[in-house]
């Protein structure tokens, strides 16, 4: 079998941590052939990134590669190569792209000089030659106006363009292997599709072998030839992509595949009365430039004349790419932002002109759940204090015992045991923290909850649980949700209606099935295609 590029056997990595060691990767073996894409799939903490870094020998100082590890490349075991020999391979025969394209490019050098540097490290080449090659590479990765980009700095490029530059750098020396560690996670869905297609095209052109690390099953289905499913540092199952998806054998794989968001919102539960209505909402930010005391001010129209109406028991999805103004709009409706113009009705009362004190009676009836469960819970407060705060502030529950009962009820409703009152947020996993955030919101018994990407920081299987919880709460309590998301799959599973936003404006709206199945605008069509097929 001469077309095998990397043959890895029993990769093991151990981390030294406070009070012991953790085996992050245990006995992982795989085979990578020329022109093949293998995918390492798993949830966070499954050891997939550590495996990739172990191949590149880019692990942190706290990590040790176990002695039985054998990574054969070109007949030699990379695990035992000297640092000098390894440096010769890295960026030359093996290259890697990372999740965050902003932090992997050096902001003080131009794009062209950074690509040229990679070329000149491994080849004898004049500066002019290297720049010429860099230009050719930028053309290969299909960046618009490559000549101009050569002299630009990373901050002048968009996220997708930066990732293209990273790919150009990775491919500069015609490597045999490209390791892509969550290459599209930080990018918008439409951009994600373009980047993955680019990698695919380059692979076909050059016979590159790709190791793709991702948690996104749609990406895997579209782009990988062979899948390794990882959990707790071990490979649970591997096989050709088609087989894994059609006939998974390991229970974990089955669970992972089963947790793709599915189902539909129940139209029967939508009431007739309107809970929240916004008319012609406009949010303008004043941007200040320079000046110690007085600068020049310019305006940024974040939300541009939006209207919506939300019925009792209904879930309204608000989708769009990052920067489309959806979070600003949602927070403006809740009066967490200042809206510049427009009217907001909540349960029949105008609330747009109210100041903070006047808003207080409404606060307990409208709540919010944020995207990142790690920053939305105060690390210094116990679970009881976090959930009780709203009750104390709104004078709900007269005695301590009464409040405690309500806190416990909220925890049970959110699917958590009620014995955790004195624990602190850092003791919980991401999914449990999001449940805590939901418990905090429902403890006040609101009628409306703003869900600001509540599932996007979570692993797939946890995401499914949170969606199920939100559905259950809506059913039982008749809640109305405004669901902000960029993930159309989750939106389809949870929402009755959907509003598509771009640059602060509504592009399209309607019942979720109608919009997602027959999008009328090009923008929506691209979003839908990116979400459900990737191959845009």
């Amino acid at each position, binding site marked *: 079998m001469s077309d095998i590029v990397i043959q890895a056997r029993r990769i093991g990595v151990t981390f030294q941590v*406070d009070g012991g060691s953790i085996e992050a990767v245990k006995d992982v073996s795989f085979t990578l052939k020329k022109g093949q894409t293998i995918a390492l799939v798993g949830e966070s903490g499954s050891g997939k990134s550590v495996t990739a870094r172990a191949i590149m020998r880019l692990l942190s100082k706290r990590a040790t590669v176990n002695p039985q590890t054998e990574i054969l490349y070109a007949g030699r075991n990379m695990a035992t190569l000297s640092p000098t020999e390894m440096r010769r391979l890295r960026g030359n025969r093996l290259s890697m792209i990372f999740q965050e394209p902003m932090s992997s490019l050096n902001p003080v050098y131009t794009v062209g000089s950074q690509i040229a540097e990679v070329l000149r490290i491994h080849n004898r080449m004049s500066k002019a030659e290297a720049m010429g090659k860099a230009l050719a590479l930028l053309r290969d990765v299909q960046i618009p106006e490559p000549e101009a980009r050569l002299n630009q700095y990373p901050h002048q490029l968009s996220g997708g363009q930066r990732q293209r530059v990273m790919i150009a750098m990775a491919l500069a020396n015609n490597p045999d292997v490209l390791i892509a560690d969550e290459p599209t996670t930080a990018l918008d869905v439409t951009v994600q599709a373009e980047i993955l297609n680019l990698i695919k095209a380059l692979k076909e052109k050059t016979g590159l072998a790709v190791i793709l690390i991702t948690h996104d099953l749609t990406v895997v289905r579209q782009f990988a030839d062979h899948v390794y499913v990882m959990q707790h540092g071990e490979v649970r199952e591997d096989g050709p992509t088609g087989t894994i998806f059609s006939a998974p054998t390991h229970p974990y794989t*089955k669970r992972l595949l089963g947790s793709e968001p599915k189902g539909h919102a129940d139209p029967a539960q939508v009431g007739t009365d309107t809970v929240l209505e916004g008319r012609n909402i406009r949010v303008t930010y004043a941007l200040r430039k320079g000046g110690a005391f007085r600068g020049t001010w310019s305006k940024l129209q974040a939300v541009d004349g939006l209207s919506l109406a939300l019925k009792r028991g209904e879930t309204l999805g608000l989708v769009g790419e990052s920067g489309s103004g959806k979070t600003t709009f949602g927070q403006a409706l809740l009066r967490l932002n200042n809206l510049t113009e427009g009217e907001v009705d909540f349960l029949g009362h105008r609330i747009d002109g109210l100041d903070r004190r006047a808003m207080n009676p409404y606060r307990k009836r409208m709540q919010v759940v*944020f995207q990142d469960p790690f920053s939305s819970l*105060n690390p210094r407060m116990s679970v009881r204090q976090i959930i009780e705060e709203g009750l104390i502030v*709104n004078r709900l529950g007269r005695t301590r015992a009464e409040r405690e009962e309500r806190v416990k009820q909220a925890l049970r409703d959110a*699917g958590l*045991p009620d014995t*955790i009152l004195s624990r602190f947020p850092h003791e919980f996993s991401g999914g449990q923290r999001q449940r805590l955030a939901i418990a905090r919101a429902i403890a006040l018994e609101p009628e409306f909850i703003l869900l600001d990407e509540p599932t996007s920081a979570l692993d797939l299987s946890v995401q499914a649980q949170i969606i199920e919880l939100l559905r259950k709460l809506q059913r039982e309590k008749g809640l109305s949700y405004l669901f902000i998301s960029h993930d159309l799959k989750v939106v389809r599973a949870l929402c009755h209606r959907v509003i598509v936003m771009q640059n602060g404006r509504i592009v399209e709206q309607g019942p979720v099935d109608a919009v997602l199945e027959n999008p009328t605008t090009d923008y929506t069509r691209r979003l839908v295609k990116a979400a459900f097929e990737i191959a845009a």
Partner: protein
Amino acid sequence: MTLVHEGEAADARLSTVSTTSQSYRALVWRRFRKSVPGMLGLILVSMLFIMSIFAEFFAPQNPNANGASFAPPDKVSFFTNEGFTLWPVVYTIIESEELDPITFQPLMGPDLDNPRPLAFFVDGWDYEFLGFIPMNTHFIGLSDGTPLRLLGTDKLGRDILSRGIMGSRITLIIAMTSIILITITGTLLGITSGYIGGRFDMWFQRFVEIVLAFPQLPLYLTLTTLIPVTAPSSLFIAFVILVIAGLGWAQLSREVRSKTMSMARIDYVRAAQAVGASDTRIVTRHILPNVMSHVIVSITLGIPAIILLESFLGYLGFAVKPPLISWGLMLQDASTFSVIGSYPWILSPVGFILLAVFAFNALGDGLRDAIDPY
């Protein structure tokens, strides 16, 4: 949906594994305990505080009693005429009949004929324990009541060790009071400025910049010379403290302000706003506790700076006036080269300062590493 329920069960299991919950303080302590310099700093700082609170008990001599001037340190030895002893003996310094041919001062040397065993809890000069209990027991001394001078005497013949121990009190009072004032003003103003923001913040920060830009040393000297020489010592110290605090709060307020600004944007503050919490509540329950860790570290690292500043001002004669004792004031005696050359032991207050500065710095470093346990 059986799969989901399985997952939920796993979730719940996970949360019941560890039953004991650790508070923030317990976590910080667990990490702090592992830092060797931090623990060393903590022990030294505690010893320093105990020593200064019970200074009279630890000082073997009355710090204002005069004896032979510039007497060298007593000789401590494990050997007597009879040979080796397990318990150390002291040969105290006595003046001999002979005079130094150059200075015409009586020559001094250890009284080798009279070894006196070192003793603990001996009777000595009278003092009031904690300010109201009359006592005359001292931690260390000589059993027969002969003065013990382990670090020699200064030019007025006062025991340097006792003065160093007593001086720690004034030095620490100045350092602690100023740091408390700095912390209160700096934190309050920093949080206010950062949380209110807008126009107030903009003007207030310009004011902070002016305070920071002040040339500090000339200002200290000018301000301290404003006080009449006849003013009581306590007033003088109060004034020094006010000057140190008046210039010191600005830096801390800047740091706290920037912390507050980033904190005010964080989601849990927004969540508190969403439940309708008042500004006071948000500041006291959400922002202050999270800023405090930073403040505590900058307190422990700020104390050595003030100790150094005091020693420096004291040396120039601007911080503390006799009869009060501070480390800086003690160093005033060491201001001429010939004195240092002949009587090097009068530099020993430097040792006290070094030790105190090291102790607080080590404590601060250890705390800084431990304070963010998440």
